């Protein structure tokens, strides 16, 4: 029988907490940027101007066809150099976190844009007609009438995607960035207690994601009740 020894965890909690902050930071920036850029992509894709629609479709299909690990790897290899030369940074400045944020944001926006496009299309066509008939421009109709309804319907899907993203942030460990998973790994490796630390990390990920998806389900129920009204 394997002898579990959890004693290295309490002392490592502050370090693990710092890791969790990095995981959350990446998640939050990628969600915010992903939704903003994803909304733009969705609107471009639905635009009657063909080249714009093609660009958006190409972007989305490209990122959805490449494994996230590869996108991140490319970002860790290329973006740090770019950032350094572009902003004239000291070669020792740590840009791994920024690179990770940019990589996730660009990748996730492809997924968000598909969710948002479906959301926009779920708003009945008559709503745009009514807004136009009142004299609103296309962008006013989008901003004031279509997007608010689309987002209300999409919130559960957007949050579910954010939960997946939070789990995926653990992939940054390969750049030796100490996110929550990376931190747990480092501590386990140092103390020779990898099994315990990885079990602990797994339980924490599970608790956070499970609680978050329960919240999403509660919201979804409320939303359905509201729509049925």
């Amino acid at each position, binding site marked *: 029988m394997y002898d579990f020894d959890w004693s290295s965890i309490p002392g490592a909690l502050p370090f693990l907490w710092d890791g969790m902050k990095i995981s959350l930071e990446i998640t939050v920036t990628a969600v915010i940027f992903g939704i903003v850029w994803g909304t733009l992509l969705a609107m471009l894709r639905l635009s009657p101007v063909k080249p714009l629609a093609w660009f958006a479709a190409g972007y989305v299909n490209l990122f959805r066809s490449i494994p996230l690990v590869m996108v991140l790897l490319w970002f860790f290899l290329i973006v740090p150099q770019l950032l350094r030369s572009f902003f004239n940074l000291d070669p020792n400045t740590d840009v791994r976190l920024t690179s990770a944020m940019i990589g996730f944001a660009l990748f996730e926006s492809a997924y968000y844009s598909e969710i948002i496009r479906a959301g926009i299309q779920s708003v*009945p066509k008559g709503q745009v*007609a009514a807004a*136009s*008939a*009142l*004299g*609103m421009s296309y962008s*006013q109709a989008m901003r*004031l009438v279509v997007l608010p*309804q689309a987002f209300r319907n999409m919130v559960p899907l957007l949050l579910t995607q954010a939960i997946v993203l939070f789990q995926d942030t653990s992939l940054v460990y390969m750049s030796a960035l100490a996110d929550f998973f990376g931190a747990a790994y480092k501590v386990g490796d140092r103390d020779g207690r990898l099994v315990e630390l990885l079990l602990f990390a797994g339980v924490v990920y599970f608790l956070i994601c499970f609680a978050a998806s329960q919240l999403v389900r509660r919201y979804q129920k409320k939303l359905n009740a509201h729509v049925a009204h």
Partner: protein
Amino acid sequence: MISIDNVSKHYGSFQVLTDCTTQVKKGEVIVVCGPSGSGKSTLIKCVNGLEPFQAGAITVDGISVGDPKTNLSKLRSRVGMVFQHFELFPHMSITDNLSIAQEKVLGRSKDEARAKGLKLLERVGLKAHAEKFPGQLSGGQQQRVAIARALCMDPICMLFDEPTSALDPEMINEVLDVMVELAQEGMTMMCVTHEMGFARKVANRVIFMDKGLIVEDDSKDAFFGAPRSERARQFLAKILQH
């Protein structure tokens, strides 16, 4: 006020409107009827440019709808439109539904828009519901709000596309009453409707469409007295049976 000249429209090879010509003078009420798929909605949507057309010309208050140089949004803000399915904005309160376009399109202040909205809400008998959301109102009430929303823009004319056909029978009259009152006050109106009671009461002329053509365009008395075409006679006999 509205002039439609030889307007034709097709979707690919399917002809929806063929050489439609008619006029609506200031203060006139025109009822448009005809079988399903005859192009009534399409014609009325061409009037405020919600549907483009390929041939002919439409002018509203002297402004050409088909001219690419026309500011369509500005023109639309002066033409009220009421839809079959109300199309209130479900994520906004009734008050916001009434004021949003006043503020964002006409540039009225929030207070001014609100006051105007309440005045028109009172006129359609729904002042007590100002703070509710569309989903909390009955169909008839929603359609009355939709009429008030259009009137908030001080339109020069109003277009109605089957405003009562999605309503339960007991709610039809509350909407028709508002429309009759509007007609009697001298509003220029073009109404797609099969409510012949409404047509008899307030219409100046009745247009009958079939397969994209304006088959009859006659005074109300001539139309109900003796329709010229066999199709219109059959159509009238059918809907008057109900």
